[in-house]
């Protein structure tokens, strides 16, 4: 029954990855910026929560504070970096390089402060194991699935049922039109990056509960999440989430035949297949 355990592990990782994917998709679909620094925001969330918990802050409060800080960081990156570049009519390439620079800054500030060794969360409850038949899950994993699905549902509700969400989708579909209807895209962009950063902080804290923290650990999840977003069809929140779960499940099941250190190869292979056969993604029109 190894495969069943791997399947469940995949669903757990996938749901967290799905939240990373929807947060990135929200930002990318609206601002059209390939926000590489998002990986840094994701990593920072975990380290902030770790610091707070280590100093005796209650777990829930630490999570909320980490989310708050990431929200601010996201808004700062959009407002102080991307918006400035936009005003200078910087090319897409320049924005990408700046974003990569921001990623390098965040990661290496973390590495300088916390060292680049792996850190484990000092929360004993998270590794307590629940056994269902032959399946073994720890509390960190259970919490990850529950909160990730809630985050997905919350994002869907936000995007489709709230005025702000509708404004964001309007700007995403046509920034020019939105501008002449006085929606002020630049203000919306700051809000979107802030919200995306808040969302990504959740898996940023939850995943390390189980797997530990590493300063450069954000790049692979973000890459996988962007692949899920592209494969799901840019602009589709459900597509990004579902594909992230699918990719994580495939990745975990592939462990039966391929050693774990090659899992990036598996992910990338999935991407290449999509690029060759369905470059617009599975859910491209399901907006």
């Amino acid at each position, binding site marked *: 029954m190894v495969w069943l355990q791997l399947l469940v592990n995949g669903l757990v990782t996938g749901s967290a990855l799905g939240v990373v994917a929807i947060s990135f998709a929200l930002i990318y679909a609206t601002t059209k910026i390939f926000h590489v620094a998002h990986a840094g925001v994701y990593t920072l969330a975990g380290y902030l929560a770790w610091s707070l918990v280590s100093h005796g802050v209650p777990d829930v409060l630490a999570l909320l504070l980490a989310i708050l800080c990431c929200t601010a960081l996201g808004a700062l990156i959009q407002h102080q970096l991307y918006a400035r*570049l936009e005003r200078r009519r910087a090319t897409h390439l*320049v924005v990408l390089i*700046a974003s990569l*620079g*921001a990623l390098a800054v965040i990661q*290496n500030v973390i*590495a300088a402060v916390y060292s680049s060794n792996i850190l484990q969360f000092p929360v004993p409850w998270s590794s307590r194991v629940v056994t269902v038949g032959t399946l073994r899950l720890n509390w960190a994993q259970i919490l990850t699935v529950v909160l990730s699905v809630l985050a997905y549902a919350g994002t869907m509700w936000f995007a489709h049922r709230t005025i702000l969400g509708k404004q964001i989708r309007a700007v995403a579909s046509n920034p020019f039109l939105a501008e002449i209807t006085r929606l002020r895209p630049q203000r919306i962009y700051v809000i979107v990056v802030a919200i995306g950063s808040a969302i990504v902080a959740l898996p940023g804290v939850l995943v390390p509960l189980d797997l530990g923290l590493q300063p450069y650990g954000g*790049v692979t999840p973000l890459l996988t999440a962007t692949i899920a977003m592209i494969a799901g069809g840019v602009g589709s929140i459900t597509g990004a989430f579902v594909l992230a779960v699918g990719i994580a499940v495939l990745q975990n099941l592939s462990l039966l035949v391929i050693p774990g250190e090659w899992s*990036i190869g598996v992910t990338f292979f999935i991407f290449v297949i999509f690029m060759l056969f369905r470059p617009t993604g599975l859910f491209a029109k399901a907006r």
Partner: protein
Amino acid sequence: MDFLYSYIILAEVYVLLGLSTNLLVGIAGIFSVSQAAVFGVGAYLVAHFLMAESLGFIPALAIAAVACIVLNILVTLPALRVSGDYFVVTSFGIQLLATAVFTNWTNATGGANGLPGIPPPDVFGLPIESTGQFVILCSVAMAIGGLAFWLLMRAPFGRLLRAIREDELAVAAAGKNVLRAKVSAAALAGAFAGSAGGFYATFLSFVDPSSFDLDASILLLTMVVVGGARTLAGSVLGPFLLLALPQVLTLVDIPTSIAAAMRQLIYGVLLILFMLFRPQGLAGEKL
């Protein structure tokens, strides 16, 4: 004296890499964080041929260059056909995959421990053993690389690439094959990076995955950004300046444990500042 020599040699090797990155990023306008992967392939290939004593240095270098040309064409061709942002994913994916291969394909690469004892190069039977001789060899290589870059840029090919970077559609409307020109630039970038790998491996007589990881790719990008895009002067200036940085840092009192993180942090800050305030670098043209 040896210390100065080895600085010059490494800087000259990185000039070849800077030219390569400039061709791809500065001239063809393709965002790439996988240049170090190509560099690594060249280095491991030359190391392999010399350690097996199956080939002399020059033929090994030629094979490495050709292999990297093919690799870069394979990598860029599918990405050039779809949206530019997907190439960001391809590029990150290639870099992470390459690091996985360098680290885990232990039989060929020595894994994380690397390959020690790479024999010194020879030029058609004439062995290059002293550091002084190496300076001459690398200076010649840099001069050839620089000359090639200069010839390319002043030929109609260079003008075509500049035009493509500004407006692909207009170039296609003028009757030119945009895809072929971009693939040519990528191929040339491969040749430069592959041969740089050969010089690097033989000079250090040791290669390991850490020289060819994502951080190394970010360093290469920083060199081009700081030096300046699309000019020979920029491609030379960037490597010489940035390779001096670690020496400058030793003057400041920084614990060795975080020295690497501080270096990368500075690269990140440089990327952001140059994109915001001086996108043409010190001696280049606007990115």
